[in-house]
């Protein structure tokens, strides 16, 4: 049976809407550094970028209505926050030819460009899914069911018809593999 590492499955989204600690921890692990990289690239201020990203997670926490496309949602929230920031910045300093102001302005235009922005959104999703997809099939099935769909070892055991001992081994293996391949999962749970 093919299992896709899909953050848009209803179970993960429910966990997010219910403000589950596991879902938010995973979200931080997978998304924080990437969103920060994205925000910093446009707003050119590390501290402000960090604040924007922290606020993005707070916004997600306050939202109870994410039903489809998690990646699209978290990306949109981040992009809008950056656009707001740049809009203010390009208007704040009204000295002619001010360097920062002009840079904010071209970055605002760049980020407001929907077709360019779509590239980032898609690449972000790919990078997130890749982190899980690189695993061997069996290993991935177990990992996704346990860590993304939030099933218990017992439930996975029933569904995939393997022993709980095997499940534990597979998760250990999955984490080990990902440690090698992707630092993203280094300390995941």
């Amino acid at each position, binding site marked *: 049976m093919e299992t896709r590492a899909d953050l848009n499955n209803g179970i993960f989204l429910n966990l997010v809407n219910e403000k589950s600690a596991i879902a938010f921890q995973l979200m931080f692990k997978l998304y*924080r550094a990437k969103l920060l990289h994205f925000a910093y690239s446009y707003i050119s201020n590390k501290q402000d970028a960090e604040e924007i990203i922290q606020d993005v997670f707070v916004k997600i926490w306050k939202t109870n209505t994410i039903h489809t496309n998690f990646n699209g949602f978290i990306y949109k929230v981040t992009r809008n926050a950056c656009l707001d920031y740049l809009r203010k910045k390009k208007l704040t300093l009204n000295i002619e030819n001010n360097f920062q102001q002009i840079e904010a302005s071209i970055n605002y235009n760049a980020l407001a460009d929907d*077709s360019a922005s779509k590239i980032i959104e898609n690449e972000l999703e790919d990078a997130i899914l890749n982190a899980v997809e690189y695993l061997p099939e069996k290993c991935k099935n177990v990992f996704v069911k346990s860590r993304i769909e939030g099933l218990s070892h017992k439930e996975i055991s029933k569904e995939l018809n393997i022993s709980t001992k095997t499940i534990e081994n597979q998760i250990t293996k999955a984490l080990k593999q990902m440690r090698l391949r992707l*630092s993203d999962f280094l300390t995941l749970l």
Partner: protein
Amino acid sequence: MQEKQIIKFIKGELTVDERQKAIKWIRSSSENQAKFNLLKATHIGATFIDTSGDDSAIYYKRFTQKVKSKQGYKYISAIASLIVISIFLINYFDQPVEKTEITEIPTTDIIEKNIINTVTSKGVKSEVILPDGSKVILNADSKLTYPKKFSDSTRNVTLIGEAFFDIEHDSNRPFLVDANEIKIRVLGTTFNVKSYSKDEKIETTLVSGKVELIKDLDTTPLELAPSQKGVFYKSQNKLKIEEVNSSNIIAWKEGTLIFKNTSMSQVAIDLERKYNVNFIINSQKLLNYEYTGTFDNLSIIEVLDLLVISSPIKYVIKDEKVILEMN
């Protein structure tokens, strides 16, 4: 302009002059801007893989503190009071540290004309038995004034600082605590009063029984029920009631400090009293940072280490002062 040059610009690899040229080129036409938009998006998309989420646990922890502290929090009043504390603290920390004689003597009883003053220095607690048998535990850096013998009509004491009162019941002689702006009247009960002159509020927490808070003679006294805290805001001259867990409020008796969404400026003041240390906080952001945590009979070093682990704070000890900084 060459594409290579624009990619360098996106990567931040150009000199100031070259940057200005690149920016000029981008701004010169909408086609150029569109080309830049795509190059930039592609570059960011391709570099997601290089990012690492190794440190996400720290940010996740900060996030949980943030969302917890935001729940049910009254922003405006909080921000207003934080500004007040901060302004005050900046002045407070700028003052040269005065060493008083009391620092050398943990607890002193100064008796004059049948009036007893029990004074505790920073880092010391003291238990006082009043003439009527009532028990008072006096927290650090506090002063309790009471007569050698109470009068027949009232039992009057004066408090500067923090104390826990366990008062003997006597319906004929009400017990009165003078906490400067606020007077507390009781018949027999247990309660806690925190009224340091440097704090911007006076807090009375009722553990059991009944107490009345009297602001002035014109206002009707405010009655507290157990596990309620009457907070008097000095700057606003206002008295408000809050529901609290009274056992947390009096945990200091057992050496435990409990903070719940407490501004770092207040945390520092409480730590200074308990450990007889001086803090320096220069960052406005840190003064406003809200801390939630429990220090259960820890040494000052253990407390500082815990602060470092649980919040974006680092510390340096210099000239016997603890300097706290945002990490």
